[in-house]
């Protein structure tokens, strides 16, 4: 019923799906702005020149802007998935198709995902069909405690997925880091401290000013300059260095705080140790990833002003660093004043983000549990991860001037029965077809009376 209203309206207007920015408006919809507030019914959104022109109630649609009746539909900002491996793999267990790890790489911090991202990956398309319009993409630490430099992408059906290259560095401390550092947390911390000291020295000696990833104020289409840190220079280094020159150069912006450092850590004690790193490296721009026991140190995290990309529903002692895991972790951290986004790598697929957010709302009705309000939960998969990722103000929301990443849903987006019916990125309507939708259409029936299924396409 919902879909029919919308589809009928769309059909009448004769919108063509072309890769061009179109001005449009949607009226009478339920609007979730993504800023943490509750949804608004009977709202209107106007999108012009690829950006949100206005959104709210009591708006009139400007003359000349085609309007769709959104009765029964929900309109939200596009979801922001962090952290993901979108565009880095085709089949998980087919190693030749999988760029999400590099166990035998001679490099670590210098790894840069941006040249490897494939915007035509099925997982990008499937995520887009699930309402995800932007994502942070990273390679996980494998050959070292450092995973390399992650990028921010959009999931648009075009040749240019990179919104910002080298947006953040990834490091694993805790159990994962310990394994990669030679076997202990002790070694991981020594390796980490040494790496940052080498980088600091190298940055000074070779005069690397080190802004790896200054966010562009607005997307120019030309925000991928050569990484100047990696050009040749003649700086001499001592004989006892551990890092390769590229790895040292890559860590300069981390140590001087111009590039975010995503720290994978779970245990309360490990979180405290990470927060304490700023005593030694005061410029570190820390983001915690995982943080299953964050609730036990929520006050410390909040006081440090460090945001968290949290595993939303982990509630098992999967390891000895997650003994205190509970689904109430996110709610408790938010109550303590921590900025929390949901970790898309802590679920089967990034498109589970709304389901996981919905589960946190469900906790509000469980005695003794700490849940989120609907608005908070939706913000944790839209504006909060966008902010943590260093996107400009308004990203992940539908405030006037925000980027035109819009998703129209056939119902409450956090409900498992709902799905996007339209997705726009920068105001451009996106195709929602992919390998899965094509298979479902082919096998809607099993009739082969005339020809084999191979001819049904």
């Amino acid at each position, binding site marked *: 019923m919902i879909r029919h209203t919308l589809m009928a309206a769309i059909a009448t207007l004769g919108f063509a799906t072309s890769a061009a920015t179109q001005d449009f408006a949607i009226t009478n919809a339920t609007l979730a702005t993504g800023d943490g507030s509750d949804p608004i019914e009977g709202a209107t959104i106007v999108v012009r020149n690829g950006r949100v022109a206005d959104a709210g109630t009591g708006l009139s649609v400007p003359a000349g802007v085609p309007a769709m009746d959104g009765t029964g539909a929900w309109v939200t900002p596009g979801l922001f998935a962090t952290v993901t491996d979108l565009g880095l793999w085709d089949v*998980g*267990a*087919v190693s030749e198709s999988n760029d999400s790890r590099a166990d035998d790489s001679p490099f670590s911090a210098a790894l840069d995902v941006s040249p490897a991202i494939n915007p035509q990956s099925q997982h990008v398309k499937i995520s887009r069909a699930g309402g995800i319009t932007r994502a942070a993409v990273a390679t996980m630490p494998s050959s070292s405690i450092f995973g390399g430099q992650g990028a921010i992408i959009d999931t648009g059906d075009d040749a240019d997925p990179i919104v910002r290259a080298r947006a953040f560095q990834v490091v694993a401390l805790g159990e994962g880091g310990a394994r990669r550092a030679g076997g202990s947390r002790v070694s991981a911390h020594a390796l980490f401290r040494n790496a940052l000291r080498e980088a600091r020295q190298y940055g000074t000696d070779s005069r690397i000013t080190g802004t790896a990833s200054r966010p562009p104020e607005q997307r120019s289409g030309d925000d991928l300059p050569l990484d100047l840190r990696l050009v040749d220079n003649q700086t001499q280094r001592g004989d006892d260095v551990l890092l390769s020159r590229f790895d040292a150069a890559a860590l300069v912006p981390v140590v001087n705080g111009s590039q975010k450092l995503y720290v994978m850590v779970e245990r309360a004690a490990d979180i405290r140790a990470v927060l304490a790193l700023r005593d030694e490296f005061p410029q570190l721009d820390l983001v915690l990833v995982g943080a299953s026991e964050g609730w036990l140190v929520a006050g410390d995290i909040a006081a440090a002003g460090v945001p968290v990309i949290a595993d939303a529903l982990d509630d098992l002692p999967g390891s000895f660093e997650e003994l205190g895991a509970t689904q109430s972790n996110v709610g408790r951290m938010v109550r303590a004043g921590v900025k929390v986004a949901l970790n898309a790598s802590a679920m089967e697929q990034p498109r589970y983000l709304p389901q996981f957010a*919905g589960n946190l709302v469900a906790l509000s009705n469980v005695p003794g549990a700490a849940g989120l309000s609907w608005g908070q939960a939706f913000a944790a998969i839209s504006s909060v991860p966008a902010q943590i990722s260093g996107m400009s103000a308004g990203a992940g929301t539908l405030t006037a001037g925000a980027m035109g990443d819009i998703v129209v849903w056939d119902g409450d987006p956090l409900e*498992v029965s709902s799905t996007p019916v339209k997705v726009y990125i920068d105001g451009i309507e996106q195709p929602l077809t992919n390998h899965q939708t094509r298979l479902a259409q082919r*096998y809607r029936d099993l009739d082969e009376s005339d020809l084999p299924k191979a001819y049904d396409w």
Partner: protein
Amino acid sequence: MIRTIRSALCIGAASLMLGACASTGTADPDSAPAATGTPLGDDGAAPFGSTYNRYPGAPTALVGATIYDGAGGEIRGGTVLFADGEIVGIGDASLAVPDGYSRVDGSGKFVTPGIIDIHSHLGDYPSPSVQAHSDGNEATSPTTPEVWAEHSVWPQDPGFWRALANGGITALQILPGSANLMGGRSVTLKNVPSRTVQGMKFPGAPYGFKMACGENPKRVYGGRGRAPSTRMGNFAVNRQTWLDAKAYDGKKRDLGKETLKGVLDGEILVHNHCYRADEMALVMDMAKEMGYRVTAFHHAVESYKIGDLLRENDVCSAVWADWYGFKMEAYDGIPENAALIHNQGACVVIHSDSANGIQRLNQEAAKAQAAGRRLGIDIADHEVIKWITLNAAKAMGIDDQTGSLERGKMADVVLWNGDPLSVYSRPEKVWVDGALLYDANDPKRRPVSDFELGQPGEGDVK
């Protein structure tokens, strides 16, 4: 066939299972053999027999809730009565509540049978998932029909109790892993805390037999330079193993052949990990050749391509809602799988294979339902609930005892605080055989594993 087995199997547990066995008839525990494919022990009992006893429960009336009975029925504002471990009655508001029943107000709430997961590794891959706990794959030979999953189950796995509290799970099948073509026997458990696995074993449940096709066996053994290293090798090793089992005369005990014989005799149910449609079709033919039946294909992400064949062969598909892409044979997984199988008239079961997913089988079923609706396949809510209750029970051979809210069945019941097909709902109370084992409103009605005592978050909401 399963029904006969059931009445035989109730016997060993007759003193424990008054309710369930009463309906199928009981006999003298000493007179009938246990139909487990295994001879009785020197003590005259089936080996490793269930010692489960139901816990006490008050006669209870759930009143005013929407009831999905698990068998395809739906009653708004209905009443469910249970006492002495059994469902006593189910009906609409006119059903009288007998004296002595404590009333639970279900207004605005929902009641379902206990949720059943047909595919779990809880206990044999428990939390914490450290190497010392890796007990799910006896990956030392491509065929290990001689191993029994119950000998790996650690009853202190905290995952059981997350599944109870967050997922409403009251029964589950623990399977060996899929490294081997023939992984060994499964065990079906009641989701009840116990110091021993025998104390969890579902009385009267038939054994299952785990098989696996495709990539895993050929990768594990091909990687060691031995058979099977190809899919054709998989079939060759399987067929020869069946032929050898058929020739087994039972004179000298052979654990593996006893299990295979139990399968050939229809006493042990085959649960076959298989992703691809073409391989499932080959397996069904192999089963015909060798004279056994496949009860369910698990992880069957491509069942939607052969729903007709599965219907004709009466084989269930135990599936995720939407997992795909993590391995080559999962590349064609689609969210519409369950709905398309159902639409062909074949049997659907939603499974987890995950200590996390088992806490949300209701949500997975709802996702699969919604994917079907978008393709124009409307499946009623009460049908979808069947995918995680009665259909699972049938494929595990325990549907005479649980899986639906029918008079005389075990009082395995979940009271949900909202529609179980909504992301916003959670179990409020869970009864197993009429005993209240989880109550969201009572922090002490929440199991805490030995492992969690004295740890951060002991007894916390999880």
